[in-house]
């Protein structure tokens, strides 16, 4: 019996070493659920640091503003924690930063603040936001000395317009 226990113990110990997972798999999973805006509104410097903080038990799961209720529901599901509502969900259009090119003085401060390198330009030259890459994280707003950056919803086009869930009389009766 003792022998078996020892052998199994050794096997387990070996497996633990042999199959050691690099990094923290749970943090990776959480990070995959976060919206990757890198906005730091949660108080951590990016989505992955926030994920690590959740794993470490330092952070609640309801700190991610861009993720909204949907994102938190996913986190709650993954971690088996209680869902904490954040308020009424709104249908979100993508928000992107826009630089008023007349006002911009070319100070490059916003370029340094952008977590995803979505602002291009160089010193004393006008800057512009590549809206394809912009996550709408607002981190470029505070550093701007002339307040020339605004956040705006991307315009609705037939491409990003969505069909609504079909509503019929029966379901209205059935669900309420």
């Amino acid at each position, binding site marked *: 019996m003792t022998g078996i226990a020892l052998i199994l113990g050794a096997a387990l110990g070996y497996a633990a070493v042999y199959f050691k997972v690099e990094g923290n798999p749970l943090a990776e999973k959480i*990070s995959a659920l*976060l*919206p*990757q*805006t*890198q906005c730091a509104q949660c108080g951590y410097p*990016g*989505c*992955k640091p926030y994920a690590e903080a959740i794993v470490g038990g330092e952070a609640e799961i309801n700190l991610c503003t861009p993720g909204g209720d949907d994102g938190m529901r996913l986190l709650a599901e993954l971690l088996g924690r209680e869902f904490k509502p954040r308020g009424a969900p709104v249908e979100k259009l*993508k928000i992107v930063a826009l630089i008023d090119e007349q006002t911009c003085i070319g100070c490059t401060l916003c370029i340094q603040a952008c*977590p*995803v*390198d*979505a602002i291009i330009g160089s010193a004393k030259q006008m800057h512009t936001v590549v809206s394809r*890459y912009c*996550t709408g994280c607002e981190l470029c707003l505070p550093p701007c000395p002339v307040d020339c950056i605004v956040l705006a919803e991307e315009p*609705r*086009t*037939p491409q*990003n*317009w*969505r*069909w*609504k*869930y*079909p509503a*019929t*009389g*029966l*379901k209205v009766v059935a669900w309420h």
Partner: protein
Amino acid sequence: MALNSLRGGIEPDAHKKESSETPIRHVPLPSRLVVPLVQSSQESARTIITVGDRVLKGQCIGEAEGAGIAIHAPASGTVAEIGYYPMAHPSGLTSQAIVIEPDGEEHWITYEPLDPATASRDELILRIQASGIVGMGGAVFPSHIKARSKTETLLINGAECEPWITCDDRLMRERASAVVTGSAILAHLTGARQILIGIEDNKPEAIAAMRAAVCDMEPVALKCLDADKITVIAVPTRYPSGGERQLTRILTGIEVPPDKRVTGFGVQCFNVATAYAVCRALLHGESMVSRIVTVTGNVERPGNYETPLGMPIAELIALCGPKPGTTRILMGGPMMGFTLPSLEAPVTKGCNCLIAASAELFPPSEPEQPCIRCGSCVNVCPIELQPFEMYWSSRAKNFDSARQYHLFSCMECGCCAYVCPAHIPLVDYFRFAKSEIRARDEEQKAADQARARFEFRNARLGREKAEKAARMAAKAAETRAKSAGEAALIASAVDRTSAAARTPRDRQS
């Protein structure tokens, strides 16, 4: 010729006679023409005029960008405005459009006609793009892209399987010769060895006219393709035989997988109205500035109207005398068309039909009942999907499962919803699920990209920091070496006290 059968399909009431028995009529010019910059499924055109410019009919007012097409003034007159106007789209969104106030002179500007036999292929294809020709069946895919790819067999689609619509029927009856000529030119461009013209057998006059036109082809068309390589085929009347893949299967027996284009199977398909437009553009130098629109339903004067593009739909309907009881206007046929959110929207290149709907002609749908899995939808699906399984998944917002049931193979032909005994709006559920899945895929892609860029930036900042540190260290080492050298010199000069003097300096660096 042996025809293959359409899988599934339905036979709704045709309602063709209402509009098919009067000749094509011309429409008087309205006071304003609204020409959207986006007229194809590709990039929008780039404006090349400014407000106040005088333009001639057929003059290019927006140049083609990328794979898009050029747009043209539908009448001679003045550019009054460039602004945002409602689109003919179920969303009711607006898009940028050029407004032209016609002067009533109808002065044309035409290009030099091209002879397909002598002009180069590139020249002909560029002309198709510059003339603003898109698929007129409703998909508005730019024709020059399709004309560029080589093919074995050219299908000309005159099936017109949707109920109520008769614009292709009338076009074939009245202008068969030009349709055949345009088809021959397209065969010449695509290198097709044969043309199969498919027409539903509820249009005997159109079939006869097209056969006569093939027997009596124009010389210019004969230079492109021999008459005996063109076959006009009557296909059984069954919706949706006019779908590109469905017609391909009926005429050639080729089953094209839903995720592949027909082009990959040696087949290319053009609508008869597109072939007609190609003929006008190449042989007469006329850009696409009008199209034939069927106006039918609850109106006094149903029929087919040659309408300038950009004509506000409200004005076209008003010309046809809407009867009391008209509740809404459908664009396209009753199976795949949509209710226009705004009648301010203009007639565009894909606008084949406008139907004035009343409660008698189009009764409101009955309340939705639970699905009993009766399988009616499976029997009629032309793609042999399992619509009710897709419905259960979409309704539960179980999008992965919906995708597994081949949701994206669905072409939204509406056969399933047409037969559903429980009155379930199946297509609505499919559209909802498709747009949700697409949006989620987009979001996922954006998030992945943001993560990659964030991590790359962090790595870059780290590397820069490391490089800076390394640089500083190198500089420090250099300084140290230099000072060490100086020290050595001093030391040699001052002899043995140097060793004691070096130690504090090292600490400082």
